[in-house]
């Protein structure tokens, strides 16, 4: 595996592991989600560079647009959680807990 491929592969693994573990704040999980998006943007751009195909340059731009949508929705949920419970602590989201 070439060093550059290894670096974004491991960056994606770090962020997905960081998303999977329990955190205190909801926004820490949202930040890990954003770093997953960033670490996917870089290899999508590298795909079009390494295969010398200009038309694939559309895909990272499109991914950026949808990642902005997802970040906005996540932040709206953060604001809703803070206005309901006073903080964005994850242990407040326990309505489904038995």
């Amino acid at each position, binding site marked *: *595996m*070439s*060093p*550059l491929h*290894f*670096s*974004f592969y491991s*960056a994606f*693994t*770090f*962020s997905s*592991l*960081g998303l999977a*573990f329990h955190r*205190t*704040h909801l*926004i*820490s999980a*949202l*930040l*890990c989600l*954003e*770093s997953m998006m*960033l*670490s996917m*943007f*870089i290899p999508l*751009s590298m795909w*079009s*560079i390494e295969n*010398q*195909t*200009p*038309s694939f*340059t*559309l895909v*990272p*731009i*499109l991914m*950026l*647009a*949808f*990642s*902005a*949508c997802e*970040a*906005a*929705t996540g*932040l*709206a*949920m*953060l*604001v*809703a*959680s*803070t*206005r*309901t419970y006073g*903080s*964005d602590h994850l242990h407040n989201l326990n309505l489904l807990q038995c």
Partner: protein
Amino acid sequence: MTYFVIFLGICFMLGVLAVASNPSPYYGVVGLVVASVVGCGWLVNLGVSFISLALFMVYLGGMLVVFVYSVSLAADPYPEAWGDWRVVGYGLGFIFVIYVGVVLGELVEYWKVGVLTVDSAGVSFVRLDFSGVAMFYSCGVGLLLVAGWGLLLVLFVVLELVRGLSRGAIRAV
């Protein structure tokens, strides 16, 4: 030059590690800003300066700025930076996971040191990324309309999520 790009790749990994090891959100955003700046430099070194500029403007200048002032909603009385033993433990644990995966998966057998850039195949008269993104308006116009519709939709989604009291689904007050 090749080694500089590989150094930027390692810095990218470290920036993302700084987000994933569980510091307070104030310090996590710093890691994300560093990772995105280094990612932009990486893309510029590979030749696609337009994609790098789009990442800088939209991601760093748009989305991360919004994240930075949303972090103010997550206030800690005693914020944990990267010197805290818990955060160091998370970081070392993640490095250990990657190390085990690399060793067991035998990923570094052939450590080919080389970087393919945009100009590796010769001189280009029209830059690869400019001509590629310009296809958004010619062949990919359907995708452009779908993305624009999605962004407009998200505006109303956010409005409904934060509205409360009588119409909202999430807020109780």
